[in-house]
């Protein structure tokens, strides 16, 4: 598993310099797992296609869309309820007038000026 993770790092990092660094790290990790006595050499060989298979599966469209739904649900906890359309959570919350005004101002801002959310920390390119 350690070698698999090290290999996944080398496969998924796109920066050329760091990619070489992670490839060297994966090779060192392969020797380290065998030398530590945690795994056999055959385990390391099996881990290579296992890593590629895992990466291919996670790149598939079905997996990505399912993950996107769960990731969005984590960011917005009431999103599943909104999708159900049963009721609007916001209508049930009682906000003081000052806070309500502040919230309305934020809602009126253009999309680009909205405050950063958690998902903006995830690079959408990869």
């Amino acid at each position, binding site marked *: *598993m*350690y070698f698999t*993770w090290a290999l996944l790092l080398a496969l*998924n990092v*796109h920066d050329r310099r760091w990619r070489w660094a992670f490839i060297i790290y994966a090779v060192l990790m392969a020797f380290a797992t*065998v030398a530590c*006595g945690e795994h*056999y050499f055959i385990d390391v060989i099996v881990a290579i296609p296992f890593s590629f298979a*895992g990466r291919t599966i996670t790149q598939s469209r079905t997996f*990505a869309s399912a993950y996107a739904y769960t990731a969005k649900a984590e960011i917005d906890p009431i999103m599943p309820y909104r999708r159900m359309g049963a009721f609007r959570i916001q209508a049930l919350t009682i906000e003081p007038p000052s806070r309500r005004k502040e919230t309305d101002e934020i809602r009126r801002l253009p999309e680009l000026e909205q405050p950063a959310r958690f998902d903006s920390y995830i690079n959408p390119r990869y």
Partner: protein
Amino acid sequence: MLAYALAGFAVIMLASCLRIFLFSLVPIAAATGWLRPATIDGHLRMLDLVLGFDGFALRLWLVRIGGYQGVPPIYGSLIFAMAKAWALERSRILLRSALSGALLAIPLYLFVPAGPEYAFSNLPETSGALVPASWIQPRN
């Protein structure tokens, strides 16, 4: 932000010491040990020797030249490498593949139990005998 980073680092280090996840896997490992008491270490060791790669000899050689001290830090530095890779690109594919790889590996660990560190009594001596597997024996 630095305070949050330091707090997160402290939590990760504490969790590493407590082995919370290992404790949570004990019931599953115990059940597997009861259902499948025999490990396949002997076969895997033979397969290694057939392929011409002797892990025990590699360890003995590293100990002899004094290079073995550098091996455990490499093995233990994975968490920092993963943090660096995440900090570099914040790749969703990396996140997904690391998580799914770990989940896919659990059945492999449980149903194909093996690991020379736990199976051979006097590793890395090449004459090491296989230790009989008990139901609670750590499996790698």
